[in-house]
């Protein structure tokens, strides 16, 4: 039992690694994508919109397989599994976050922009000091959803052979002829998401100083 738990802990570390790397890339990347989506220039907004549609419209598992195998067929290029997983996850989640940001930005009243303009704020100051801080508060619940989904989606990494938590659980199941390891893995995911939810609850409380 303990050996299995240690193995699962090792698998969890891989899952957690995927989790943090994906967030580190997709959260910032989503901002220019959101702005591109909202751009008045059709040459910018149309391709960005297409990218978002494809990312949200096709299964992540399919994207993982594509990102990993396609480069070989297209350019005879190859790169390692873990990198492929991160690329697929980051690019996919950036699309989802971009739509969340867009929703948040578009929900900011026009009056905020007008007040800022009349007071003489630069476009950049208006966005980063007036608009964005308000957007962050508004998108917390939707963002929490995405982040929790990400924790669970890390299980898909096994599609291209990355040994994360769920794969370890399945192997233990095969070896022991029991489904117990699967349920134990479930407990691991639950704990990870409990931590995520607690963090977001804390963020929301911190930003509750105004409404």
């Amino acid at each position, binding site marked *: 039992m303990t050996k299995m738990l240690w193995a699962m802990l090792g698998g969890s570390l891989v899952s957690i690694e995927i989790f943090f790397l994906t967030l580190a890339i997709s959260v910032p990347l989503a901002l220019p994508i959101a702005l591109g989506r909202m751009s008045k220039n059709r040459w910018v907004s149309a391709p960005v919109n297409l990218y978002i549609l494809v990312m949200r419209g096709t299964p992540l598992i399919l994207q993982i397989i594509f990102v990993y195998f396609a480069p070989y067929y297209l350019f005879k290029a190859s790169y390692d599994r873990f990198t492929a997983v991160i690329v697929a996850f980051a690019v996919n989640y950036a699309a989802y976050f971009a739509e969340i940001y867009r929703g948040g930005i578009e929900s900011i*009243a026009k*009056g*905020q922009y*007008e*007040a800022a*303009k*009349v*007071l*003489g*704020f*630069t476009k950049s*100051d208006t966005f980063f*000091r*007036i608009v964005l*801080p*308000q957007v962050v*508060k508004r998108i917390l619940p939707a963002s929490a959803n995405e982040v929790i989904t990400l924790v669970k989606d890390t299980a898909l990494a096994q599609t291209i052979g990355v040994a994360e938590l769920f794969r370890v659980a399945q192997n233990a199941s095969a070896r022991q002829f029991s489904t117990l390891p699967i349920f134990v893995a479930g407990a691991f995911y639950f704990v990870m998401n409990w931590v995520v939810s607690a963090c977001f609850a804390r963020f929301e409380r911190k930003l509750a*100083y*105004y*409404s």
Partner: protein
Amino acid sequence: MDVIKVENLAKSYGELEVLKNISFSVRKGEVLAILGPSGSGKSTLLRAITHLETAQTGTIEVCGQRMLDAGTYADKATLREVLLKLGLVFQDFNLFPHFSVLRNVTEAQERVLGRGRIESANIARSLLAKMGLEDKAEAYPCELSGGQKQRVSIARALALDPEILFFDEPTSALDPELTGEILKVLRSLAAEKMTMVIVTHEMAFARDVADRAIFMDGGVIVEEGPARELIGAPKSERTQAFLKRFLS
């Protein structure tokens, strides 16, 4: 001297003409009231002068600088200079909800005018005191009443030392009891000879405090003159019809 000179200003939204050949001027230290029914174009006029909207033809001159010259807008730098001379108070306050009351008044001072933090805070506190809100400096806009929010809004605009203050229906979003405190502030600003352009429905206030008044309807200036005269004894029939509803 004229701090605002508007000549032949016209604006359309596609087919719809909202401002037709508007010309008027405002003198330094003067209080101008703009009256009229909704849809008359008075808010649009205010927003055109403060560059929140763009006009197609005409001339707008502020403190000698041409913002718009016969349909052509000045370059970015000039527009910015002009904008800094203007302050605008909105009907819906538009305070920044994530900043404290104090920060609402200091932020633009620091970021736009480059004032130091201590200097900005001092100026902010004295303005808030003038508005009777010195003890609300650390509060957030969501905790204030409408009247208090509008007063913060006025302090925020004043903090940048504008030459001219514009007010777009400053009391229309307030409960009647709270209107008085804003009118009191406007009265004291007028007494200090602040140049102001106020779009308002408060006829009694306009008659008592404004020096001149303009009545707009359907995108044109129907009548203009000294406030007491225009509101007390309007000459044009349309003006009479409009004021009758308010003053009776």
